């Protein structure tokens, strides 16, 4: 859609984005220091929007990895439809264009009372405000035998990167007629439609390359996100290929056996050719170390400023928070990050704080040319994030609408990752 741009108006280009927002430095003011821990979607967005909006704040982003591979669209890689390189983004623009100090170390501990962060290289950084975007961690012990070694045999592929590559390799070398078992996690978890999008796209790959293969989803739940849309698509595109078994049917997955690549439920054992085990989740490690998570395993926050309800001066965004009606999605993390960045900027500059407006937009593939979408807005109501308006695709949408959504999703990906990393 290159035909329609700002350029037609003659004087304005995309470069006007954000750079025009850059203020001059107020004279004689000491710079406030903000540290952002975690260079995923939420963390990178907070860092970028703070640095772009206020030059009187020094922004440091702490992220051990040199590049970030997006979880969203990684199911396309599993289906052989997108190289992982196209889903991988660096931090160069954040450093060079926005003047963010990017530190490629991991944050080991946070001391909220001393307002310091200790890195794994031993150095200590101090801050005026801290933003933690720790993402998710897996709950140990929920599935017997699913340990560090098992992850290399029966990958979760729920953090994109090497795990995604491993699962793709296993799917590629699987023989036609093999059984692919996907273990779907209990609520809440990162990206509610993603396990079922994964099954859909892998089915499209099997249909092309291994038409006798089967997919078995062993769910920890009795229903799932957009179930009507998925089941309609599975019947239309992949009749007889995908079987979904709810927890009430199997009694839930209790253990895995990596030697036989078996998934063991309360009632039955399923021997897989390839197994994808997505375990139960909680906030990332650092959230627990720093006392930011409550007994639920997730982090309670103020829904306006995203400041921790447990540790003043520390903000949290993204999958790790208790987000009320907001799902654990990259778009939500990005939206929360902007609200958080402007709340911090208003506090540190003594400016007026305006009410936050929060959104989710997401596209989900049912097949390479069949996608559905949703667009939801949220607002804080009585201390919780509540849905205000929502659009969700319907089962009866035409094939044309779905094809357009699949095309729009590609544009969404480019624009969205540019907003975060570009």
């Amino acid at each position, binding site marked *: 859609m290159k035909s329609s741009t700002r350029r037609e108006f003659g004087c304005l280009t995309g470069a006007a*984005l954000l750079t025009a927002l850059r203020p001059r430095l107020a004279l004689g003011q000491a710079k406030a220091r903000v540290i952002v821990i975690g260079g995923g979607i939420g963390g990178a967005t907070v860092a970028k929007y703070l640095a772009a909006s206020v030059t009187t704040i020094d922004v440091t982003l702490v992220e051990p990895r040199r590049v970030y591979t997006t979880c969203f669209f990684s199911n396309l890689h599993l289906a052989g439809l997108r190289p992982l390189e196209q889903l991988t983004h660096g931090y160069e623009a954040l450093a060079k264009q926005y003047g963010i100090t990017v530190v490629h170390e991991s944050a080991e501990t946070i001391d909220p009372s001393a307002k310091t962060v200790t890195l794994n290289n031993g150095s200590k950084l101090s801050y005026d405000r801290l933003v933690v975007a720790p993402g998710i961690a897996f709950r140990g012990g929920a599935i017997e035998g699913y340990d560090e070694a098992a992850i290399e045999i029966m990958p979760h592929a729920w953090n994109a990167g090497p795990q995604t590559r491993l699962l793709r390799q296993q799917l590629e070398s699987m023989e036609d007629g093999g059984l692919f078992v996907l273990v779907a996690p209990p609520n809440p978890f990162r990206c509610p439609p993603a396990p079922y999008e994964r099954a859909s796209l892998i089915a499209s790959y099997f249909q092309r390359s291994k038409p006798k293969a089967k997919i078995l989803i062993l769910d920890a739940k009795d229903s799932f996100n957009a179930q009507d849309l998925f089941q309609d698509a599975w019947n239309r595109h992949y009749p007889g290929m995908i079987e979904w078994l709810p927890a009430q049917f199997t009694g839930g997955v209790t253990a895995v056996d990596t030697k036989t690549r078996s998934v063991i439920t309360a009632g039955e054992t399923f021997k897989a050719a390839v197994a994808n085990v997505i375990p139960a989740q909680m906030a990332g490690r650092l959230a627990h170390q720093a006392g930011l998570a409550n007994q639920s395993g997730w982090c309670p926050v103020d829904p306006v400023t995203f400041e921790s309800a447990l540790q003043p001066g520390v903000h949290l965004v993204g999958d790790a928070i208790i987000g009320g009606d907001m799902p654990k999605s990259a778009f939500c993390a990005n939206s929360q990050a902007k609200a958080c960045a402007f709340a911090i900027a*208003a506090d540190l500059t003594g*400016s007026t704080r305006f009410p936050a407006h929060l959104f989710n937009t997401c596209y989900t593939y049912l097949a390479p040319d069949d996608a559905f979408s949703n667009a939801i807005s949220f607002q804080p109501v009585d201390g919780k994030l509540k849905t205000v308006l929502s659009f969700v695709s319907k089962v009866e949408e035409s094939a044309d609408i779905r094809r357009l959504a699949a095309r729009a999703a590609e544009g969404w990906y480019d624009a969205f990752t540019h907003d975060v990393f570009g």
Partner: protein
Amino acid sequence: MTTPTPRVIVPSAAAKGEFFQVKTIISHGMETGLRHDDQGNVIPRKIINKFVCRYNDSVVFSVDLHEAISANPFFEFSLLATESGRLDFVWEEDGGDVYALSHQLAVG
């Protein structure tokens, strides 16, 4: 800050029952409200906070704008040509100032 200038690109004629494309932009610095002047006082926020397009007095496209919006906001959308008449475009700024343009459309 220079005076905000709104502009639109709209066809002057369209066939009845067909969609036509509308492109709009307003050159506007979008003061963030996060800057200080030389005396250290906060410069109040001044952004375009609303854009509305009316087609013969009916609202056909409306957008609320908030923080994190870029300078010089650009919108492109499609409208269905139903009858000849007037398109009104209005941009509302923090503080109450309004910028407006009108456009005549012949539908045949």
